[in-house]
């Protein structure tokens, strides 16, 4: 009889006997196979495991093209196959051809014997290939649930329909009325539009300054103090799920593991899921080629449209077991004590707080103009705006990552909308409208700022398109929204989600009018700006710009990024880039609303040290 693979690993000195006992303990607690725990909780690398298998006479086979029998597959549950890294494929020569990552897993072998009343014919394969194949063959019902769950439960909040009939009617009637008005009295209608736009800009900007001041007032307030973090006992900590939805991020896998290993949280209580798409062999192979132990489980999302991050996360939810859940991008470097801070904060907050948002900032801020501007923007957004919104009890548009949820409430809300490309902002509002609250924690996740112009435009166009989608979804019935979120929530939503794309769309128009006026002093423009309108417009132009520049300066001042302060002056140029992205987003909203513009990560050449919080 062949040796148990557990003993082989000890014999090969890849794990110690103590490790083996620890793995067995974790495996028994989680109901997972020994090898699943060993490979995914940082005990042994896949390369070493393969070496041990070869030593024991089990070379790994390529299995992706293996034939399978659907009837036989129907007898096994995906979760069971996933937890044991094994999958029965077909019956051949009176035996069940079974893929196994650990050919000595007696429990699964017994399962095959009892279920099919036959002996298994074991094909040893890489755990990643088995995971890939099991999700591909058995994941259909889960992926359908990931796509249609929200639509079935709460169709009014699904972005599957971009424009409702009423919205289209409203848009076209408004455009029609404006055109008719322009034909009847071009000058008056233009002046009215001009004044409306200018006033809207100014109100939005003054409101943002106000929020920034409110936010900055609490910059010394610590939601969770170091002392409170120190008091958190490891044994009392709940299981924490971390979703890492990635697509073709092969270059970042090593960094990802370093960052995850730095987290100050008991390893066995972390439930980390690297969620990759079925066609993403690059990332899968990068995981396979790691020459050190991984600290995450891989989930493969079977192909299904739309191919978006929220769909992947929804799929991952089916396999997650944490009490709390957060999402990080592959390149994220969270403060090491972030998870503990969140646990401590949730313990302090009333039960209706279901999400905690951490601040986001950038580790490569000094790399080029774009990264500097991005840092200015994020510092302002996460350090001032969100705390300001939080203080004023206005719905918070969640950031794309580092938002920590209570799992039960997330499921109750129907999780993320797979048809919305800024599912985070949408979820923030949905949570608020159901009476739930979002808190802000004094912890930062450092990300990689986009340092490439076209990559930036792609990313930003998706964000702006998502804001448009979210706005359209929730404004299908404005009265209902008003009743649900109150006047503050309603105004906040209109100013932040609605106004953001609108201001970016209007900005180049107003700017060109101004430039033409300055450069050519065109008579027809002069007519659109009678003295009093010119007065208001110049005031808006000047005051609006300086206020926005100032709030950006305030934010980097707070972060002590003094070298960036002057870059705030370049904001008008940065907004022009936003405008370009906004027009791209608008175009996509009409022709391809669910298309997920992929942002490439790993372009930065800046070294990203882990942000250890002592």
């Amino acid at each position, binding site marked *: 009889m062949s040796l148990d693979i557990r003993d082989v690993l000890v014999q090969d000195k890849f794990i110690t006997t103590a490790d083996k006992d620890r793995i067995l303990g974790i495996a028994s607690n989680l109901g997972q196979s020994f090898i699943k725990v060993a490979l995914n909780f940082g005990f042994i690398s896949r390369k070493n495991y393969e070496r041990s298998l070869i030593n024991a006479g089990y070379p790994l086979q390529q299995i992706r093209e293996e034939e399978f029998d659907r009837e036989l597959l129907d007898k096994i549950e995906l979760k069971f196959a996933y937890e044991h890294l094994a999958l029965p494929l077909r019956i051949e020569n009176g035996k069940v051809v079974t893929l196994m990552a650990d050919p000595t897993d007696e429990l699964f072998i017994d399962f095959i014997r009892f279920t099919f009343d036959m002996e298994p014919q074991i094909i040893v394969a890489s755990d990643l290939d088995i995971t890939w194949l099991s999700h591909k063959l058995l994941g259909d019902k889960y992926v359908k649930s990931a796509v249609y769950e929200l639509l079935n439960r709460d169709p009014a909040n699904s972005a599957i329909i971009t424009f409702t009939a009423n919205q289209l009617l409203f848009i076209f009637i408004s455009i029609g009325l404006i055109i008719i008005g322009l034909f009847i009295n071009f000058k008056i209608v233009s002046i009215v539009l001009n004044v409306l736009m200018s006033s809207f800009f100014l109100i939005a900007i003054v409101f943002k300054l106000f929020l920034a001041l409110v936010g900055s007032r609490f910059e010394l307030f610590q939601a969770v103090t170091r002392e409170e973090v120190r008091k958190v006992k490891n044994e009392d900590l709940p299981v924490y799920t971390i979703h890492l939805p990635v697509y073709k991020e092969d270059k970042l896998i090593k960094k990802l593991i370093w960052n995850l290993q730095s987290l100050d949280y008991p390893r066995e209580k972390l439930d980390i899921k690297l969620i990759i798409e079925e066609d993403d062999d690059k990332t899968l192979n990068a995981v396979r080629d790691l020459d050190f132990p991984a600290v995450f489980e891989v989930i493969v999302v079977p192909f299904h449209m739309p191919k978006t991050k929220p769909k992947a996360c929804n799929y991952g939810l089916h396999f997650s077991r944490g009490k709390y859940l957060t999402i990080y991008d592959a390149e994220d470097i969270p403060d090491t004590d972030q998870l503990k801070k969140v646990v401590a904060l949730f313990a302090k907050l009333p039960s209706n707080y279901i999400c905690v948002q951490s601040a986001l900032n950038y580790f490569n801020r000094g790399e080029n103009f774009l990264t500097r501007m991005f840092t200015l923007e994020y510092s302002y957004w996460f350090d001032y705006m969100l705390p300001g919104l939080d203080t004023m009890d206005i719905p918070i548009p969640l950031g794309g990552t580092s938002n920590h949820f209570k799992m039960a409430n997330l499921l109750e809300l129907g999780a993320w909308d797979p048809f919305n490309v800024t599912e985070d902002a949408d979820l923030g509002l949905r949570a608020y409208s159901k009476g739930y609250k979002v808190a802000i924690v004094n912890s930062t996740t450092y990300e990689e700022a986009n340092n490439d112009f076209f990559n930036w435009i792609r990313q930003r166009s998706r964000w702006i398109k998502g804001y448009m989608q979210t706005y359209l979804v929730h404004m299908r019935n404005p009265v209902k929204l008003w009743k649900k979120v109150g006047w503050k929530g309603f105004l906040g939503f209109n100013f932040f989600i609605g106004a953001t794309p609108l201001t970016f769309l209007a900005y180049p128009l107003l700017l060109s009018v101004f430039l033409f006026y300055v450069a050519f002093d065109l008579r027809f423009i002069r007519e659109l700006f009678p003295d*009093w309108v010119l007065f208001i417009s110049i005031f808006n132009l*000047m005051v609006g710009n300086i206020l926005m520049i*100032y709030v950006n*300066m305030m934010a980097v001042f*707070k972060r002590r990024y003094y070298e960036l*302060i002057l870059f705030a002056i370049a904001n008008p140029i940065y907004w022009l880039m936003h405008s370009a992205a906004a027009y791209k987003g608008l175009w996509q909203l009409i022709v391809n609303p669910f298309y997920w513009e992929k942002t490439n990560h790993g372009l930065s050449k800046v070294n990203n040290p882990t942000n250890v919080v002592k």
Partner: protein
Amino acid sequence: MSKNFMVLVLTLVLAGYYVFVAVYLNNMGYYNQESLFYIEKGKIVFDGIGQRLKVIGLTAPLFPFYATFVFSIVSEQLSAVLASAVGTAVLFNIMANAIIKRLDDEFYVFFLLGIFLIHPGILYAACSGKSVYLILIFFFLFYLNFFKFYLSNTTFHVSIASICLVVLVFCDYKFIWLTLFFLPLVLSISIDSLNLSEKESVFRLFISFNNPSLRRKLINKTFAMYIIIFILPLVSVLIYKMLNLTHAADLNYFIDSPYATWSVMAEKIDYNVLLDTTMHHKLPEAPIVISTRMILYCPMILVAIYLYRQRTYQILTLLTPFAFVEFLRIKYDKVYLAQQYYLIFLILALLCVVIRAVTIKEQKAFKIMLVILGVVQIYSGYMFLDRSYVKEEQTFIRVLMKKEAPDSQNENIDMANYINALPGNPRLLIDDGVAYPVAAFIKNVQGLIMPYEERFLSAVESPGRYASYILVASTKNPANGYTQLTPKYLQILRTGNNKIYLEKRFETNDWILYKIDQH
């Protein structure tokens, strides 16, 4: 009774007291150039015809005008004094709230109340209708937030301080120069914030300048602080200048034009050092000596400096107003320092007491000292006003203390009364750049043709076609050289081919009213 409620009640009582005194003084006939200017502009905005938006946007200083403007709804004639009375009570409220947040001793609230009730300078701020109250409010808030910044190191306080400075500058443009004296202060803050073992500031500066990394840090931080504190006031002024340029074709319209601000004429006539020295040989406030005058006016500032001994930033902060007034004396050497530049020391001293009183162990002795200094300051406040080089300040205290009815506006009121009594709402050509004290008393502003209207220039060219009356400054009027509507202008009209006949209808020392008949 909670402390907050007590402060609110005291504020309301104080506001009532100020309104009573202000109305009393108003009835006694006390007016000043600034309040009349605001009243006149308020009338234009509410009742005038033509480009009123320009008057709203280009009347300076902005915030005092807007504050007066709000009270025009209650009474146009009393709007300025109502604004100053209520505004000074608000200042008390802000300061008293700052006290109850920090000190658990009602003595300080009542001490403050005592100062606000009887200090002549504060009464002047409250009951004169001038913008002094707004200057004091935002001066107090500016310094309060600066001191808070020293304690908390939060961007919030430094930003609020910056916003307060913006408002302060738009209450009195001269406060823009205060920014100059924060330059060494900011450098000192930056040096102190560097992580160095050396404690002495001079050596810290030496070390940081000779180390490239520290030098870069120091420069970055100092520069960032300058930007955060001063960019808003500086750019706001720049923007305002732009608006002036686009709407009045003059960047400095708001400080140079008598149509935009009251101070142009007042500083040439009432506040002018040269006039006094040449005519009365008074010894003006001399540079250097001015700081001593400030200490004599407010000896409590010495206590404030003592309270912050061994704290470099705070001492430097307390010295900035001294440098500021010295600078003003040099920069505006032809103009006397008005009361607000004295009162800022009183407010600053009180602020320091509010913040630092808690650190004093011998509270009883400290309180006795404060009471003694308070009494001395009330006396010095009276003396400074009574001997003020600025006539309207002197008039104020004489009306208040000696019930001497002033006659400064009698002629203007007489002229206005005559115009008000003219039958049939006639049109009157008037240059409110100099004649705003008359216009302020005229009831029907729509009957006046003034420079803010487009037709004014045409009316000056051929008055017969536009107006039936014309008000000209007599040769005795000190503002005679600053308006076109003078006897010389009438001479030109008569000699020109205007075919008009001018009939003198009413005459005072400063003004002559002509009826125009066109043949």
